[in-house]
């Protein structure tokens, strides 16, 4: 009995040690004080590099440009960063030229090679379970209709694309809801819907082509309806999709919704407000950007833009901690972009120079 007690004590002590070691290991890997911050995605110059991540510590106000190089021994990011996505302690970066998916840990350290096989002109990604779905335009796209576009299904564990699902029409932003993958089509007046179990594709007709989604607390979606050169439309604004029925239930008109590729729609943390970037000529015929505010409760856009007069607006992000808006602008692809921080009421608080052509940001805690 005494021997058993000793064994039991030893086993319990060992288990406790192991468990505590494990906990410490997780804590030490990605300590919050090192990770927490806003990470600005700078696209760079298409095919000519310049893609980077700037880290903004909103607690101290410190901006570190080319943070990804600092974290990776000075190694530059070789692709233009089209989109960044966080999921299960990983940061996934969608790269163009070279086309690849790069996986980083929350410290923004890349420890394994990017995936490029079966990823041609990747645009966006979203995860469900062990899979990452990546929208791709396909090799050498015909820019009028993008007939060869597809969704690549990547197994996160094996880091390999297991299959591709054909989806013509230029898939852009995506969201997973109610067991379906909703895909905004940027070259076709529809939203693609892929049943994640059967992988059957269906479509929701839309009055304009679409670009990106935000998901509400009830797993329903708001999507940007945009007018583009190839698909002109006056029916721009927001569309509301009931994801259970996979139907476009309502549209909310807003002129001059930005057709840029980047973060053009964001919600606040409580999903009471949706912010949409617009771009239009002002009274003096100068092209300027603005942030329109959509009230989710009243289903209306405020008559006046929350923020306006931003030249070269290129993206928006909302800090989930304080609902401050980070509005990005960039005049060129080789020079410094700008990040303006506004309160949720639209008061400019701070400005910082960031990397080349910022298109959005993600937040880590």
């Amino acid at each position, binding site marked *: 009995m005494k021997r058993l007690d000793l064994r039991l004590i030893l086993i319990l002590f060992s288990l406790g040690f192991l468990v505590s070691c494990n906990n410490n290991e997780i804590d030490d890997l990605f300590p919050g004080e090192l990770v927490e911050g806003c990470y600005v995605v700078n696209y760079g*110059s298409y*095919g*000519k*590099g*310049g893609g980077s991540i700037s880290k903004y510590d909103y607690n101290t106000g410190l901006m570190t*440009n*080319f943070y990804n190089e600092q974290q*990776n021994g000075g*190694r530059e990011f*070789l*692709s233009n960063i089209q989109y960044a996505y966080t999921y299960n302690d990983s940061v996934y970066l969608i790269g163009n*030229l*070279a*086309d*690849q998916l790069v996986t980083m840990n929350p410290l923004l350290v*890349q*420890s*394994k*090679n*990017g995936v*490029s*096989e079966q990823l*041609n002109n990747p645009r966006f990604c979203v995860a469900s379970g062990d899979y990452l779905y990546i929208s791709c335009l396909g*090799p*050498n796209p*015909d*820019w*009028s209709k993008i007939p060869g576009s597809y969704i690549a299904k990547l197994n996160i564990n094996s880091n390999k694309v297991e299959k591709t699902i054909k989806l013509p029409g230029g898939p852009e932003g995506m969201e997973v809801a109610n067991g379906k993958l909703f895909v905004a089509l940027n070259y076709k007046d529809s939203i693609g819907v892929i049943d994640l179990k059967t992988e059957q594709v269906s479509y929701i007709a839309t009055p304009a082509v679409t670009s990106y989604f935000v998901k509400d607390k009830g797993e329903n979606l708001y999507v940007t309806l945009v007018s583009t*050169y190839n698909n002109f439309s006056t029916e721009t604004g927001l569309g509301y999709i009931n994801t259970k029925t996979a139907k476009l239930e309502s549209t909310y008109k807003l002129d001059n919704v*930005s*057709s*840029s590729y980047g973060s053009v729609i964001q919600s606040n943390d409580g999903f009471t407000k949706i912010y949409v970037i617009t*771009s*239009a000529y002002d009274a003096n*015929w*100068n*092209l*300027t*950007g603005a942030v329109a505010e959509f009230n989710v409760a009243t289903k209306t856009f405020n008559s006046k833009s929350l923020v306006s007069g*931003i*030249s*070269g*607006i*290129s993206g928006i992000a909302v800090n989930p901690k304080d609902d401050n808006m980070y509005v990005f*602008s*960039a*005049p*060129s*692809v*080789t*020079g*410094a*972009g*700008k990040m303006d921080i506004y309160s949720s009421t639209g008061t400019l608080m701070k400005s910082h*120079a960031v*990397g*080349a*052509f910022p298109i959005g940001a993600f937040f880590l805690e």
Partner: protein
Amino acid sequence: MRRFVFFIFLLFTGFGMLAQNQYSLPDTVVLDEIVTFGELRKYQTGAKIDKIPATLVQLAQEGGIENVLRRFTPVYIKSDAGGLSTIHFRGTSASHTSINFGGINLNSLTLGHSNLSSIPMFLFDGVSVQYGSSSTINGSGAIGGAVYLTLSEEWANGLKVTAKTSVGSFGEFLGGAKIYLGNGKWESVTRAYWYLKENDFPFNNYYTGNIETPGPVRDVQRGASVQNRGFLQEINYKFSKNQFFKSSVWIGNNWYQVQPNMQSNYQYSGTQVINDDYIRIWADYTNNEHKVNFKGGAGYVHDMLVYDNNETQQIGTDRLISEIGASTDFSSGLGLKAGAAYKYINPNVYSYSDQAIDFEHQLDLYLSSFYQINRNLRFSLNLRQMFVTNYEAPFTPSFGAEYTLRAGSESYLKFTSTLAKSYRVPTFNDRYWGTQGNPDLLPESGKNAELGAKYYFGTDACQTTFGLNAFYMDVENWIEWRNFGVWQAQNVREVVSKGIEFHSNTRFLIGEMEADFTFNYTFNPVEPINNVEENGLLNRQMNYSPLHMGNSSLGLKYKMWRFFADGQYTGWRYTDDFGHTLPAFFVANCGFGYLFDLKKHNFDVTISSLNFLNADYQNQKYYAMPGRSFKLSLKYDLNTRL
């Protein structure tokens, strides 16, 4: 850098060894015309215009004219290894140089510039370059410089055939022929060429993105093929020595793949192709028989570019052009020329709205004069006013002066000075592209001041020139495309470019050996001094504008043998506003040739090596350039009198 020093040492060692024997020079050497004092110079006193010697042009006939300009002028050519290269005179942009053939400015009216790789050197017999502003002569766009492509004026009397074929590394092939047929009055000159380049060269790929096994890998360039072909037919008639009619029809097609950057090449999955079809017709009549000389010409230009085989997205223009001018020399010291140039332009661009632009008229009126006070002092004055449909172009004057000082019986010194205004009307894309076109753009406006000194020395044994120019150029309302929520052309900067250029050319004989040595160096700070962007670049060297450039060439001719070597140094360049740079690089070429006759048939065999020091460099960041390559050329000449 060590390679550069070694190469310069070799060149100067060879030069010094040759120079030791200069006192045995025979008296048969004639210096090629280095500066064109012809019509081009007559009304541009003080302008720096260099003619690239024919012997050098012969060395780089494969591919586009960028090879000649890169190797033998101190002008920066920004290019990849494939089918795209643009010219940047004195730190200006590609659209600040006019490329002239006859009465045609070859620059795309939609883009505003020329792709030099698509202008085949083989078709032309000469290239001259003018440094600095020449808008008063060449019209809109000639802010940084001008390139003149010329055809020989042979007035063939009999049959002359020149054929050339070259095969080189990385799938390079040139096949071309020029057939001159005439009786001294009538002349037909037919020129045709076909140029291929696979561009599958090996290179060290530093950008694999492989972080598990880092380090460069030996890679092979893919997706950078070039296929160009063209045909140029001249029909000329000489009424008399001073009265003639000339016409040329130039039809061609350029096709090339858009070279992938190194990181994409490593995971190559395909690339885009550019197809460009063009027709360029120009005919002119010259009558210098009377007190008032007359010249009139007309032409038609068709350009059609298709991106990636997408026929629905064509970018093309058609233009009818004409020019008339009359000139008279009141005396040998005073001359006047007046003329008008007219263009009717019909764009055919998929993204232009017919409501915005259906056609455009452009009319230039110009007046040129020279005044030679005495043998030593000469002035010129040029005035030009352009009129454009729904657009206001500025009035543009230029003034030049030259003072020649005899320094001895065999040498003289020439001092030159020019003051010129220049301008560029925004391109069609700038003004009419989709919903982003900006018809409210102001024209770019430049001011150019230049001082130069040139020393000439010539004896039977040796002829040499040394030239030093200092320039200052201020370009306001510099146009670039910027993001304002959507991308749009805007007047964003004021840029000042200044610097010095040194040029020398020496030709001498050593026994039976003829030697030719050239050296060019440019120091060119070019900075924006005003910028409408809050975080925009200011008071720093512009991106892709080398501060230092230099090149040198040595040619030796001994009986039927020729040897040549040349090298080009390009200084470091900024690649972005954050201060990232590309290192300097030095590329050297060499070769030898042998000329032999078989009865009336002349053959010239040349073996050359390009980049023989195997420099590993990038001209544009992330784009691979070929290492050492070899080329074998065979040229055939037949000259018979009918």
